[in-house]
């Protein structure tokens, strides 16, 4: 193990700080570019309708205890009976999400745009870092790590004698890539570009296959235990009043 290395201050001024600043700025730039490129698609009325039905059913489920048992049963039947309930999906009519995606070229286009706005800046920055800053130690993390982390932290340096806590510039780039997510969520608000992968997953689960979520909602409605809250509210009101009087 080598003892403390002496690093040139020029590395700090010309590598460490610029690299971090560039990462932050590129993150912001990517956010605005993806915002610009987001096209407003004409939503399919059928999908919207199904989404609204799901929201209504969910509201019923959440507020089930605030209505009398009879009303709840009536609403439940309205949503989930086997003949013409809103949540009931006839067999065979469920659309294959894959086929639906192919039939709508806009959707694929949109996804590709999103992917591109994600991948292109990343490759470009990585190439930039590689080209200018490869092959030297740029930073030191303030805690010891085991040898296992060497490939992760000293990417681009092929020396086995350097202490593992020293970080090469290329790996500093990766650390930035992952660690700045929190900062972005602070400065860009919640819907920032780094969450794109998550959103994509959510979309493919929610919007593309409504019949499945309809079925799930129906099951949820079926198993709910109705327990009217009003009788209990008298006791509750009594407790509140007693507390006030005291």
């Amino acid at each position, binding site marked *: 193990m080598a003892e*403390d290395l002496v*690093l*040139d*201050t020029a*590395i*700090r001024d010309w590598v*460490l*700080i610029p690299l*971090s600043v560039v990462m932050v700025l590129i993150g912001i730039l990517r956010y605005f570019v993806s915002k610009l490129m987001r096209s407003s698609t004409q939503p399919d009325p059928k999908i919207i309708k199904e989404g609204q039905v799901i929201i209504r059913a969910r509201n019923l489920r*959440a507020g089930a*205890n605030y209505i009398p048992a009879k009303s709840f049963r009536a609403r439940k039947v309205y949503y989930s009976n086997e003949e013409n309930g809103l949540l009931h999906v006839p067999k065979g009519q469920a659309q294959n999400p894959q086929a639906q995606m192919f039939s709508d070229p806009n959707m694929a286009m949109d996804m590709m745009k999103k992917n591109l706005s994600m991948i292109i800046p990343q490759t470009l920055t990585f190439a930039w870092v590689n080209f200018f800053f490869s092959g030297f130690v740029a*930073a*030191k*993390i*303030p*805690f*010891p790590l085991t040898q296992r982390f060497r490939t992760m932290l000293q990417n681009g340096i092929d020396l086995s004698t350097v202490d593992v806590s020293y*970080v090469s510039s290329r790996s500093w780039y990766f*650390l*930035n890539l*992952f*660690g*700045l*997510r*929190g*900062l972005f*969520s*602070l400065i860009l608000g*919640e819907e920032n570009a780094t969450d794109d992968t998550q959103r994509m997953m959510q979309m493919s689960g929610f919007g593309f296959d409504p019949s499945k979520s309809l079925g799930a909602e129906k099951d949820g409605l079926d198993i709910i235990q109705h327990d009217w*809250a009003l009788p*209990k509210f008298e*006791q*509750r009101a009594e*407790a*509140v009043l007693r*507390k006030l009087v005291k």
Partner: protein
Amino acid sequence: MSGHDNSNGSSEKSSSVMDDLPTFNAENMQNNMKVILYSRTFMAIIGGVIAGILGLTSLTGFIFYFLVMVITSVALTAKAKFSIHSYFDSWNRVMLDGFFGGLMSFVLFWTFAYDIVHIF
């Protein structure tokens, strides 16, 4: 230590005396969770910078992170006027949410400040 002053999400209207019946508005609850996440991230970043400038290393730094998170939890509890159950459904929300999410930001900013101040 002012990351939690931006939490205006105390809009949960529920004067529940008896806790057996959940009377929560899901949207407000989500807003509260978001506020917690933001304040945690903010505190993690600020804490990381402070730890780096102080020159804490290895275990001391992680203990410092833990302390910062505890302070944040206490401050959030104080912000909720010590009645957690009228804003969140469980204590874990206030105590644990975003604990590990903030760690990455903490480590990054800790390293950054430490490198700039100490090793060159």
